[in-house]
């Protein structure tokens, strides 16, 4: 399964893409496929503080409910409100329109400790 090289990952299936000091976070296709039809995504409010390697929200599907984790700490600057009415965007376009939150990173090098695409795929067993 293809995984974009232009971002970094957590073993728990979240991707992180850096632009300036803003990190956009979502989940991978592997995770979206495993969840099956996604019915609800609970995201934090804009302005909320999130800590690295902590839960920032929840995702529910027909099959299960899971926590969502961020690999970077900072302040939430945007959330994808499209997911409120159309959580299926995470199934259909997890690396694009299914993005979840944008975080202004506290760390100057926020993705340093995260997994490369290759290492993520190894850990995810694909």
């Amino acid at each position: 399964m293809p995984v974009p090289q232009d971002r970094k990952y957590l073993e728990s299936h979240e991707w992180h893409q850096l632009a300036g000091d803003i990190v956009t976070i979502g989940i991978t296709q592997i995770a979206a496929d495993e969840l099956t039809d996604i019915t609800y995504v609970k995201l934090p409010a804009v302005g909320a503080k999130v800590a690295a390697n902590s839960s920032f929200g929840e995702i529910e599907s027909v099959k299960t409910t899971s926590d969502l984790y961020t690999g970077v700490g900072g302040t939430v600057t945007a959330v994808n409100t499209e997911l409120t009415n159309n959580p299926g965007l995470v199934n259909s376009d997890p690396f694009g329109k299914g993005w979840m939150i944008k975080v202004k990173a506290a760390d100057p090098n926020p993705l340093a400790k995260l997994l490369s695409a290759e290492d993520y795929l190894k850990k995810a067993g694909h």
Partner: protein
Amino acid sequence: MTLTAGGHTLGFLMLKRTPLYEFHVSCGAKMVDFAGWEMPILYRGIVEEHQQTRTSGSLFDVSHMGRIHVTGPQAVGLLDRMLTRNVSQQRVGQSRYSLVCNAAGGVLDDVIVSKHPKHWLVVCNASNRDKIVKHMMQILTGFDAEISDQTESTAMVAVQGPAVVELISETLEMDVKSIKRYGFDNGTYMMSRFTLFRSGYTGEDGVEIIVSSGTAQNMVKSLSAEMNRPDSPIKPAGLGARDTLRLEAGMPLYGHELTEGLDPISAGLSWAVDLGKDFIGAEPLRVIAGHGPAKKLVGLELEGPRIARQGSAVNSGPARIGEVTSGTFSPTLQKSIAMAYVDAGHAAEGTALEIDLRGSIVPARIVGLPFYKRAK
């Protein structure tokens, strides 16, 4: 996020495959471990397969379910001892839903028992098959009867949906309409005998077919001639849709609404329990029926899109009064629905309750079961 599935790479080596395994793979199924069987959870998507079943037709492989034959002069005696339902009045060509209970009245399994001319068939849950065979062996010592586990010599498929009865009648050259609900008949397909039951687990009209393993692949292909076409009236559906369909139809699932710690009276299945006869578990069930059950299985509609899961607490104000057994977002009703056991004092339709979803309190209301009933 944490995925509950996965990690089955090694486990797959030991899993059993049904005679339709190649068919599933050719249709692009995603396979999972289900009760020791490698089964399709979905092909295209759970919600799409659910809607296909409600609007036209779906084919489910249910070959993993246990199929146990009972024969001998005292087969009826054995079954009447084991089952909550009176089988002595059952006629050839009829099937009945029944419970198998332990001595305390707890549910060991829910089964369908069918009377054939020369044998009885008990269809049980895949997850309970070993337990039920052992249980039957124990009861057997008192009766002149024989049991034989035929699960792995046959295949079983469920074909369900409003378009199914007409299409199956053509394909199998059989007048399915003349078979009553919970009736069955035999037919021949490519020189191989099959049994067709007018029953199912989706809330739709439809059939379940038992056929020899060798014939199953061919039959499935012709039933679904071009099943991968977008406008095909019958398409394959997986265990994921089977679960959301049965939940909308208010049907219990073993391990959720039924367990050894729960009894059929509390589960609202008194209609399938004949307290006037002697069977294993009858005495404690008479007591429960006499006093009225302390808790009852109810349907719940939640406010908002969030889904209640097995184990979620059901509260009335500060008091915990029950627990969710199954929940989903109903594709047909477009509402979050759940089944739960609640204290009998809080079980009236319309009662407002709250469900604790991982710390968030979501308002819910008791509604009648089933959630979905097909138009007749």
